[in-house]
């Protein structure tokens, strides 16, 4: 599809590098615009879902064209409000770092999407070590939090940053180990190959979440901790340290932190779907799907399955927040170091045995 566009541009007499640049930018837009829209509407979904869980209605006034439309206009209104608010820089703050911190937190959250595949051929950059790339890029995100906390010149912000740094570094280990299990199972560190490794005759029984069940759970919980979401949100725990690292931020700078957090949530959810739930693969065995174009489109492999799985995980994020009380800080550390890391290490050994034993239907191909 993009070749057509590129050829068209070349036909217009553009320089080849400019044509490539335009096409690449187009591709990036194609990922980023839906992503940012999802982020906006995820905030809406959060308020709605938690509202319903708490037997409230949630936002239901701001709509379009003078109609309430269940409050669908709320995210847009929020965004406009935040954009026009004044950015206040606290006295004694490190101005440069204070302003760059939101960018440091947002940029990795977006850059990681470069290698996420949405379908067997739908990926921006199909690099060989894409899983490692995602891990590396997301690990940079913590700088935004730390720098924000330090540059604010505020005790609460600093405490939040310290908590967050220790927590993220701790859970990154468990998360990394969980992903090591996945790449052992798939024999590849390319996310596309990992998804393809989960294909097979049994549909959802072929996915890795069954043999790697403990890793799957640990990955997702670590993901919740990595994004500083409830019940691991001690970095911003409003009852203890007001709002943690972003207590001094207002207006658009605050909004950028907010965007980064939600973009990371979506990223973690989509990665969980790709690694453990077969990505864009259909949960139904291919033999069950009637040979009709319409059925094939709806039930066969496709991006809609990936989006549905991602949505499921995102729902979990919201559900956790509505359900669990916040963990105490030492409990978070204990869970990460003394529970998750040992379990992942033991399970890596088990996975190794599975692979050596050629356990069907996951590991018999190789």
């Amino acid at each position, binding site marked *: 599809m993009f070749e057509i566009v590129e050829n068209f541009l070349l036909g217009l007499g553009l320089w080849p590098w400019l044509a490539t640049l335009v096409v690449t930018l187009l591709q990036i837009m194609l990922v980023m615009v839906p992503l940012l829209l999802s982020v906006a509407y995820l905030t809406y979904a959060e308020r709605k879902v938690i509202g319903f869980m708490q037997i409230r209605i949630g936002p239901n006034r701001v709509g379009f064209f003078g109609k309430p439309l269940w409050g669908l206009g709320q995210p847009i209104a929020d965004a406009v409000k935040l954009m026009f608010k004044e950015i206040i820089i606290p006295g004694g703050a*490190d101005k440069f*770092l204070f302003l760059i911190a939101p960018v440091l937190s947002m940029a990795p959250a977006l850059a990681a999407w470069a290698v996420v595949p949405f379908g067997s051929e739908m990926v921006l950059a199909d*690099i*060989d*070590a894409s899983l*490692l*790339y995602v*891990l*590396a*890029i997301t*690990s*940079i995100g*913590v*700088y935004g939090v*730390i*720098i924000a906390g*330090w540059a604010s010149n505020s005790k609460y912000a*600093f405490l939040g*940053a*310290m908590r967050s*740094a*220790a927590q*993220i*570094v701790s859970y*990154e280990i468990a998360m990394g180990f969980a992903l090591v299990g996945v790449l052992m199972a798939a024999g590849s*560190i390319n996310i596309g190959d990992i998804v393809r490794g989960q294909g097979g005759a049994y549909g959802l029984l072929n996915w890795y979440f069954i043999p790697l069940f403990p890793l799957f759970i640990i990955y997702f919980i670590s993901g919740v901790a990595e994004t500083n979401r409830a019940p691991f949100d001690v970095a911003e725990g409003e009852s203890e340290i007001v709002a943690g690292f972003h207590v001094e931020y207002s207006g658009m700078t605050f909004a950028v932190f907010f965007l980064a957090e939600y973009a990371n949530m979506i990223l973690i959810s989509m990665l969980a779907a790709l690694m453990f739930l077969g990505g864009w693969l259909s949960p139904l065995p291919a033999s069950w799907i009637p040979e009709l174009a319409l059925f094939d489109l709806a039930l066969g492999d496709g991006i809609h399955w990936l989006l549905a799985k991602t949505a499921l995980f995102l729902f979990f994020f919201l559900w956790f927040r509505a359900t669990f009380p916040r963990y105490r800080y*030492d409990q978070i550390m*204990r869970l990460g170091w003394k529970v998750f890391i040992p379990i992942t290490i033991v399970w890596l050994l088990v996975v190794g045995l599975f692979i050596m034993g050629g356990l069907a239907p996951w590991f018999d191909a190789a």
Partner: protein
Amino acid sequence: MSFEQILFYLFSGVLVLSAGAVITVRNPVHAAMFLVLCFVTTSALWLLLEAEFLAITLVLVYVGAVMVLFLFVVMMLDINLARMREGFARYLPIGGIVAATAVGIMGLAVGRINFGLDVWPAPPARAADYSNTRELGEQLYTTYVYPFEIASVVLLVAIVAAIALTLRTRPGTRYQKIEEQVVVKKSDRLRVVQLESEGRK
């Protein structure tokens, strides 16, 4: 100049400038951030060498973990910079001589005489399906398995040493005993006492 060359000089320039900034900026947090920048640009240089595994691992390990902990410590410490800089002018001549010598030696060592294209021909570009990671893994687990295993022992020793030097149980510290909490039963904590109800007087 080819595109790769432009990128190379760009990243190298940023690398050298940020490395210089690490030691000259006044604020330790800024210095740490410049060091992060150094690592990121080094990683970019490695990418230009088609060593994507090393490049990504550099970011993952150094930027993502080591420097975070480093920054953590730097922020917690109240470093008196004025005192640290006291001898700067005094040591500058000696330091300058040492630095100049080191640069000179390095120039001699990695210069054109030893590493020119006529001595070491440019490595052939790899095919698109060449996996740097797989090659590295195979080398590490075959040819270099012995040093690789020793490296793991070195890391183990580092863990043991770090724990041995920092873990100290002070008397009077209260700990949460998770296993005791978990096995507790209702009967351990709760006693239902039958009380005589007192009639209204």
